[in-house]
């Protein structure tokens, strides 16, 4: 069985390396500060024993008062997984750091989030719309989007 790591343990380990980076946690998820996202990415990927070499999936959810980015991480070597989340406030120009440098598998997925949810990924190598065309009005997966 793929072991889903306890979010509280992972949060404790993150905070030992980068104090204050993990702001909340429960038995499945870890919430990290958006400013520390890249530090946490490097920590989770490169720490022996964690070895999260694969970003299975990244997605965004519009909770109206904030956006939430959800990263599903996997270590095939250790057969364990963890869910990392981060919150973005403000609807006008939400932006998050791109994790393509850590996990190249984020490339197309981050472009999809920009296209459909309107969250910018800073330092993404090729942040263009992907499913819709350039100039399409709005970002359809937002809850206030009216087709």
């Amino acid at each position, binding site marked *: 069985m793929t072991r889903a790591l306890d979010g509280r343990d992972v949060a404790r380990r993150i905070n030992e390396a980068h104090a204050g980076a993990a702001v909340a946690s429960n038995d499945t998820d870890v919430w990290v500060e958006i400013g520390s996202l890249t530090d946490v990415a490097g920590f989770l990927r490169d720490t022996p024993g964690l070895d999260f070499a694969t970003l*299975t*999936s990244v*997605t965004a959810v519009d909770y109206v008062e904030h956006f939430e980015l*959800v990263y599903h991480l996997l270590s*095939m070597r250790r057969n364990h997984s963890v869910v990392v989340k981060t919150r973005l406030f403000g609807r006008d120009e939400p932006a998050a750091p791109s994790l393509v440098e850590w996990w*190249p*598998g*984020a490339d197309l997925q981050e472009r999809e989030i920009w296209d459909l949810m309107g969250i910018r990924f800073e330092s993404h190598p090729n942040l263009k719309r992907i*499913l*819709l065309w350039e100039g399409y009005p709005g970002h359809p997966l937002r809850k206030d989007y009216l087709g």
Partner: protein
Amino acid sequence: MAIKTEPITINLGPQHPSTHGVFRLRVTFDGEEILDVEPVFGYLHRGTEKLAESRSYVQVVTLTDRLDYVASMSNNLAYVRAVEKLAGIEVPERAMYLRVIAAELQRIASHMMATGFLLNDMGAFATPLMYCFRERERILDMFEMLCGARITLSYMRPGGVFQDAPDDFWAALDTFLADEPGYIGELESLITGNEVVLARTRGVGVLSDEQAVADSVTGPMLRAAGVKWDIRKADPYEVYDRLDFDVPIGASGDTFDRYLVRIQEMRESLRIIRQCVERIPEGPVRPDLPYNLRPPEGDAYAAVEGPKGELGFYLVSDRSIAPYRCKIRAPSFINLTPLKKMVVGWKMSDLIVIFGSIDVVLGEVDR
């Protein structure tokens, strides 16, 4: 004296038989050699994730049929598992066996398509493809017995399957299980040692194991790169933990390995189905659930090993009758991440073959 040349950009698709649907590639060449490739997505984008937000949990099953439309059973399975995880629904044992039988039949059908089209892409136009379609047709006939549909199946429901398998299904399945190993052997004898196939695929479009893992590649493409990772083994769902089967892997991650892994997986699928037929218990196939489910607030991610790779659904519930968010982790889409690294330096005709060996379905890429 050197001849002065300039790179030229050619548009491949979106309407082109070798793009397996409406997919467009802007390819830059130096002569015949590929310098750059830029995939253009979205021609089949129907907004599935948005549509799901205004349909009840059961209705969304019909949307999943239209993602990877050559593997609807696997899509159904991934989605209903996510709903069951979110709502805490128990599945009867007989239904779990029926689901595994259906999903493995679907894997064979999907791999048949992949193999047939790969030969099509190599220039063996239509004839080998029709051999593969002949076998796929028998599987679709069995699906028709199960649920009345051949492509858009909607056979699975949160909590079980739509109905128990009728008697004629079991008879057809027995005949299929008896015939199919010989048929796969025959197909392999045509392809595996074929000099033209070897020349076109050996060492072509190599994807290394490290690259595959970093690029989130899954499915036969990952296993062909030598990574022994299959969700059916790594994180068994339904009844896979009780079944005996192997996970075939490739040695070099080239186009040939991707083909061969699929052939071997078809044999393993037959093994799985045979064990299921022997062990399937009697009993109900669907619990009595209200038509409109209202899962508790929260989120859940569930994934299955689909024919193309890890197919996952991430659902968020706000206690209403429709998902608040339904994210589809589509393997065809994410497996295209390393496309550029795989084709740069090869020629136009190799691009077609490498792309074919990735085995994408545009309904799932564009969603």
